[in-house]
Each structure stands twice: as structure tokens, then as C-alpha cells.
């Protein structure tokens, strides 16, 4: 049997349209990125919980793939979540990406894979 990885639940959630984080069964602490044990209490029992899907941009940079220079650069951002976690994401409307701007997660296909990307609150669709 192939070993199940700690982050598999997250990507299974993304494929179902859900943004998840790990929550400790014992003490309730949320954590991201995934790891097998709760750093707060030491329990290795956990479950996935749905996040609000909201957040705020803390920083953003332009990412050019070194071997795919002809493609549009991606705007990669660090997002502070109201649940007290942070996630790295990329911005669907880079022209609005600024520090402190509120964003909402939109699960979006990139390179044939579904990813947790964000759009700014004023960005519309």
C-alpha cells in the first residue's frame, strides 16, 4: 500500500471545491502547511476543516518561470487568513494586488491542475 501523505487531504479538498486546513482532534489548534503532529499538544490525531476562504495580502512578487519566459508572469502572494494561518497563493487579478488588500480564494485551474488562487475583493469576475 502506498503511504498516504499528510497533505493529500488538502488536495482532495481542492478537487472537491473546498479549502481545508488541519485541525488537531485533541486541542483544536489549526495548522498549515500540513504535518503529522500537532506542535501545540503533540497529538497525531487530526481532521480537515473548511476555511472561510477569505484573507488579506501581506506581500506579493512577480514570478517569471526561468524556462518559460514567454508566458505571462504570475503574481505570487502571501495571504493572512482570518483563522490565524498563512498561505502562499497567486493572484488572478494582479493589477489590484497590494499589501493589505482583502482577497477571496477561488479554486482555479493552472497548467491542468486545480490550485487555491485568490482574487482581490474589488477584482470582480
Amino acid at each position, binding site marked *: 500500500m502506498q503511504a498516504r501523505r499528510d497533505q493529500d487531504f488538502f488536495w482532495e479538498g481542492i478537487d472537491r471545491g473546498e479549502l481545508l486546513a488541519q485541525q488537531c482532534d485533541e486541542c483544536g489548534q489549526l495548522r498549515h502547511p500540513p504535518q503529522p503532529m500537532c506542535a501545540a499538544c503533540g497529538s497525531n490525531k487530526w481532521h480537515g476543516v473548511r476555511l472561510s476562504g477569505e484573507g488579506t495580502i501581506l506581500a506579493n512578487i512577480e514570478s517569471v518561470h526561468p524556462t518559460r519566459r514567454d508566458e505571462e508572469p504570475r503574481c505570487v502572494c502571501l495571504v493572512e487568513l482570518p483563522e490565524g494561518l498563512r498561505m502562499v497563493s497567486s493572484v488572478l487579478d494582479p493589477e489590484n494586488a497590494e499589501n493589505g488588500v482583502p482577497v477571496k480564494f477561488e479554486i482555479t485551474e*493552472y497548467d491542468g491542475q486545480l490550485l487555491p488562487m485568490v482574487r482581490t475583493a474589488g477584482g470582480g469576475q
Partner: protein
Amino acid sequence: MSAAGQTAITGLGQTAYTKESGRTVMSLCAEASMKAIEDAGLERGDIDGLISFTMDTNADHDLQSSLGLPMVRFTARAPFGGEGAYATFQLAAAAIESGQANNVLIFRAFNERSEARFGQPTYNAGSRRDFHKSLGLVTPGQVYAMWHKPFLDARGMTSEDLGRLVVQMRAWAANNPAAWFYGRPITLEDHQRSRWIVKPVLRLYDFCQETDGGVAFVVSRLDKARESGRPVVRVLGVQQAWPLGESMMYNYYKKNLVFPEDTVHVAKALWAQTGLSPAKIDVSTIYDNFSPSIPISYEGYGLCKPGEVRDAIRAGELGPGGSTPVNTNGGLIGEAYLHGLNNAAECVRQMRGTSPNQIEGAKIALCAGRQCGMVLARE
């Protein structure tokens, strides 16, 4: 807290730093190692310990075989490399001060430019999804710039301020014959004209010089080093600190993005171990894979007050003629990227009085990384 160190760096060896060595990595490693042993005035039979860090690919026993070391009794690896590279000297001190080794060889060699470039993308279409690469952080420059940015923003530092810093690093390199940028100083305008690699943080000249080469050191018992009659560079203190939540590369999840907690803890432990303070440091090297690494650690080690690094850079304090000379070899940006250990080599040269940019009368050197640091003293 352990007492001031009882070890000395007795040997230093390095290969030429190139962009294409045309040789195996073990060939580079063995050359640097043998030069370090000879520089220490030792025989191969005197070396009984081998230390590197986990990212080095030279197997201890292959190196032993190439060098013909008759007996090795101690081996160890410090985590990763880079910002943690100087932890190797703490492992060497632990081995020697506990009587488990007498002369430890520290080595690092790679064909980082011609064979296995760190700067190449680590993610391509079809790779398994993850939390960083899939979202667009595919090179080290991007990975680091994402958490450099909050610090730079908090300090009001712009690309021009990084340019002022790089001008100072390149001024040192311009006078170092071993440096890639020997004889090639730049102006702020040159820096600002260099192309963006990771907008709006890193331009081309903010990057270190990916390099092929090797560097090695011999660390010995202090009492034996003193008896040898050769130059003694004492390892006065060496410390690591890895506070929970800090990460060497993906440093996005710690509580305070702007506070270099790891570095502050390393510095505090170093001053406690050595009885020194930042004001006693005559010359420093600071790990500079990218230019923003310098201001973060400069503040973290207390070389200025928190929040004042921009002023120090604008006043030219880190360059030639400055009050706190940093990376007098040109650093990883100006000399070569030997994963941090060429900066340790420069500290050794400063303490021996043999740097191409020798600081007059320098007696104490700080070799700084984010998660480890070392203080050397000239005897």
C-alpha cells in the same frame, strides 16, 4: 552556556572559483581538503574527523579514500547549508572539546554552476501539487524574495537601497583577485539598470554568483595550535539557533515576519559565550545568497539598532572605509557562492592579516548566518 571555545582554525584550502570546473565534485573537494591539511602544517594521519552539511554530496568515506586518511573516528553533518553553514564549526568544536577528535576537516565542494544549479526551476507542469512551487515560487530567488519583502517594506528600503548595498559589496570584490567580479566595481546606476529577476525585490545584481569550486578548513585543539608556532585563529564562539516557526527557505509561517528571531538568538548566545558585544567586532561576513539577506542579519546581530540598517547602508558603513566592514571578499554576491563557507574563509584571512582588503588591526571577526554564527579571534 558553554565557555569560550577551545578550538582554532589551523588550515584553510580552496580551489579556483569558476563557472565551469570541468572536473568531478570529489576532485574539487579533495583538492581543497589537501590544501587545508597542508596549510595547517599537518599530515594526513593527523586528521581524524570529517564534517560537512547535509546538502553536500561528497560522501565522507569517498573523501577519506581520495585523501588517504588512515583513520577517521568522528563524522557529522549540520542541517542544510547556506545560512546554517557555520554550524559545522560548532560540530567540530563539540567533537574536539569532548575529546572525540583532534583535527577535524570541514569541507564543501560542488559544481553548482555547471552541473546542479540551485537557481534552476524546481517545478514544471505536471509536477505533484505543493504549497509553494505550484503557486509560482519555483526558484530560490522567488522563495526568498517573498519573505524579504515584508522586512524591506517595514524598513522603508527600496531597490535603490539594495543597490547602494551591492555597490559596497562589489567595491570589496573589485579588489579581490579570487572574486568573480575582481576589477569590476559597479555604480548605483549600473545596479538599477540590471534587469529584474524577481520584481519588485531582486534585480540581477542582487543575486550571488553561482560557482563551481571547493573550500575546506582544518579545526584543531587550541592548545596544540598554540604549540605549533603557526598562525592561530581561535574559534572564540560558535552557536546555532532554530526557534520553532522559523524556516530557512519557506519562512512565511512565523509569528512576526519582520523580526529575525533565529539570528537574534544566535547573536545573544554568541555574546554570552564570548563576553563580547557587537561594538567589539572589527570585521564581519554576512551570508548573502541575495542582497536582502545582509540587512536582515546586520540588524539581527546588532551591528546597528533595529530599524537603522537603511541609514547604515546609505552612509556606506558596510563598504570600504565604513565603520562596520561587511564581506570584505565581496561576499557571495561579489566573490563566489561556495554556499557560505567562502565567507568563513574570508574571516580566517582577516584574522591572519592576509585578506586582499585587510582591515588594519582587526582582531575579532564575526562570521554570520541567520541560523548560526561564529566569532573568530586573532592571537
